[in-house]
């Protein structure tokens, strides 16, 4: 048996290290390490409650709106107020844009460049893919970044700036829109639609959204959408067997996204926040198993048995996968539910597929939300001061379920606990030795003579689109 440490792991957000035990060309055990701890939960303690709106989003430069919305939701539940409907719409649109931008970044900058690695030099598709997707040098990234920066102008209109806006409040959003702003929103979303339909999918979004089975998907990739980057992904992924790689059997969890567009739930049925716990047995943290509403964060870099700064979230005691695929499984999307049912779990292929389907679903919904804004109505109702109380804010970031648990005493933050999407997906083991989802997805992988350098390791890790800065926060 040889143990190999893989790191720094590039083209993921933040710092990731993976230790692989390899026996006879097969991964026998994986340990996933979050190597950065900044202590936001500790930093927030003692601050005035509303300061969470300024500090929490700064956990992350790529899912800042998600962090803002979780903080605002936690404060809102402590305040017991209802937000202005326009504010809900504006927040949904901004959130949708952030999440779509993340999906695009992941596809073009993080995931696809691995197919341009020299490892695949013999494949019939290699030359075309290398010219299109090679990291830094490929042709696809420039236009994708341009489309991304264009649609991110939605943030300038709705949130002043991105990242780290303070426009998102318990009572709504701080920027009222006029007619000019609304038509600019429409124009910016239309620009993204054009990019998706011409370059990403090579077909109308409605055509993509009508796919309900693998058979239809393969037909789409060979015919109607054949010239899109999405079809290139489908063909390559199936050629390389990524529809059988990196599996995790579930459960899958979603806190529910966009105010009902995608429901809350788990693949096992309903979801209750009371079933979420964090296990600290293999974290560099003092403590055992805790409920986040009562959790403590006490780092101990020398904790025996610890191998990650991440805690290990568990759903009713089980490791759970979160993200676009989990959202679509919980939403019972026929195409993605079929993928998961077909092999008894998630795969590299279905994780990417879910993000692409979400791009089409979310953009279509966001276009509708822009039309639903009532320009003469308020966007924000005042907050209500809370001396003592508690709240929970559960949202879906691009990468999955994000929760903030907050307790307020004398108007100040007494406790702030955060579970981020990658905390779920890249969790370490728990006290029962149950590995986290990525650890399970890597175990059993046939890496052959390549060992830890097998590109399959790269595909599996990146298929989760990890955000390591959020993971231990």
């Amino acid at each position, binding site marked *: 048996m040889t143990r190999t440490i893989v*790191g720094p*792991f590039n083209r993921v957000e933040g710092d990731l290290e993976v230790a692989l035990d390899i026996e006879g060309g097969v991964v026998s055990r994986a340990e996933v390490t979050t*190597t950065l701890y900044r202590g936001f939960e500790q930093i927030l303690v003692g601050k005035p409650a*509303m300061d969470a709106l300024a500090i929490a989003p700064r956990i992350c430069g790529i899912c800042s709106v998600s962090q803002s919305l979780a903080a605002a939701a936690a404060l809102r539940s402590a305040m017991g107020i209802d937000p202005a409907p326009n504010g809900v719409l504006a927040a949904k649109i901004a959130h949708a844009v952030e999440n779509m931008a993340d999906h695009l970044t992941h596809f073009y900058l993080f995931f696809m460049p691995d197919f341009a690695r020299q490892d695949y030099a013999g494949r019939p598709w290699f030359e075309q893919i290398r010219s299109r997707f090679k990291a830094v040098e490929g042709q696809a*990234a420039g236009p994708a970044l341009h489309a991304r920066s264009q649609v991110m102008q939605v943030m*300038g209109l709705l949130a002043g700036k991105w990242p780290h806006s*303070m426009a998102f409040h318990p009572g709504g959003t*701080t920027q009222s829109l006029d007619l000019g702003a609304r038509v600019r929103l429409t124009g910016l979303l239309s620009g993204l639609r054009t990019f998706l339909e011409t370059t990403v999918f090579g077909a109308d979004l409605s055509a993509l959204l009508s796919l309900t089975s693998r058979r239809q998907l393969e037909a789409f990739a060979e015919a109607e959408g054949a010239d899109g980057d999405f079809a290139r992904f489908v063909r390559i992924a199936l050629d390389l067997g990524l529809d059988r790689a990196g599996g995790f059997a579930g459960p899958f969890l979603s806190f529910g996204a966009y105010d009902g567009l995608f429901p809350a739930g788990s693949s096992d049925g309903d979801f209750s926040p009371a079933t979420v716990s964090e296990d600290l047995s293999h974290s560099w943290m003092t403590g055992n198993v805790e409920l986040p509403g009562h959790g403590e964060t006490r*780092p101990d870099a020398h904790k025996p048995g610890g191998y990650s700064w991440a805690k290990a979230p568990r759903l009713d005691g089980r490791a759970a996968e979160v993200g676009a695929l989990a959202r679509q499984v919980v939403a019972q999307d026929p195409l993605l539910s079929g993928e998961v049912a077909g092999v008894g779990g998630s795969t590299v292929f279905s994780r990417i597929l879910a993000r692409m389907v979400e791009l089409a679903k979310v953009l279509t919904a966001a276009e509708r939300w822009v039309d639903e804004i009532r320009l003469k109505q308020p966007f924000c109702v005042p907050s209500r001061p809370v001396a003592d109380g508690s709240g929970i804010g559960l949202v879906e970031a691009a990468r999955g379920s994000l929760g903030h648990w907050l307790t307020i005493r004398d108007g100040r933050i007494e406790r702030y606990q955060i579970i981020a999407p990658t905390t779920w997906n890249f969790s370490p083991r728990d006290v029962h030795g149950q590995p986290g989802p990525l650890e399970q997805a890597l175990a059993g992988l046939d890496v052959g003579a390549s060992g830890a350098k097998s590109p399959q390791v790269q595909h599996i890790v990146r298929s989760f689109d990890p955000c390591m800065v959020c993971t231990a926060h």
Partner: protein
Amino acid sequence: MAFLDRFSSELEALGLSLLWHPSISEQSGEDVTAILADVIQGRIVLDILCVEGAVLRGPGGTGLFNRFAGTGKTMMEWIRLLAPLARYCVAVGSCAAYGGVVAGGSDPTDATGLQFEDSVVGGALSKSYRSRAGLPVVNVAGCAPHPGWIVETLLALSSDQMTDGDLDVLGRPKFFADHLAHHGCARNEFYEFKASAEHLSHGGCLMEHLGCKATQAVGDCNERGWNGDGSCTKGGFPCVACTSPGFSNIGNFLATPKVAGIPVGLPLDMPKAWFVALAALSKSAMPKRVRANAASDHVVLPPKCQRDGGE
């Protein structure tokens, strides 16, 4: 900036070649440590070292809160190894510059900036640190900094156009630090008349009641757009002075601290008595339109239009 087809062509056109970036380079794992070894051993010349994030010295001076994955070393060690080899060293963001939010509150990780700890010279690197070209760490402060500040700093450095004299006393490039976030604020007319917003989402000036520090914070934030043409104050929320050391610890971001009803944080270089006198005068001259719109989330009284043959 126009986007060429290839990201690399765009960099080349600007005279930059990317040695390694954690989010976009192909190299991972051993290929990265090989690049780092080449730099340390002088086989690759390091022109510009960009560091994002505070340097975490804890726990107990070990730096173990931030190990650079796969290298067995802490990020603190790597920065101290690489910074002296770099022709220029750039701290990107207020965390790397001063410690930022991460050094706030109870500062659980003993976080610091590269060459400043808060506003005091001397962070993870020595007080006397100079990069090979003789410059201290260039602090592209901001949380987050405007992308233009980052790119323009890199271009000025790659063409050797930035000198000591181009940095302010906190190491920030003067091309943005010689401005105040207040300059060009779209709420300027409300500021002139001290017509103040009472709640977030109101149209008025955010300084008197809602904590806005734009008259004290450096940055050309309202002179160049964010994500198109946005800005914090345009977005309806106060400037938190994110380009300043220690900004996150001031706290109570949404309320203006006052003594006897007068905001404590007045514009830095204006005599207080003058400010109070002028504020009283301008408030008394406040047009009805400005007063009404300041405390409303929509324009309720538009500017009067002159039209031939009537009002």
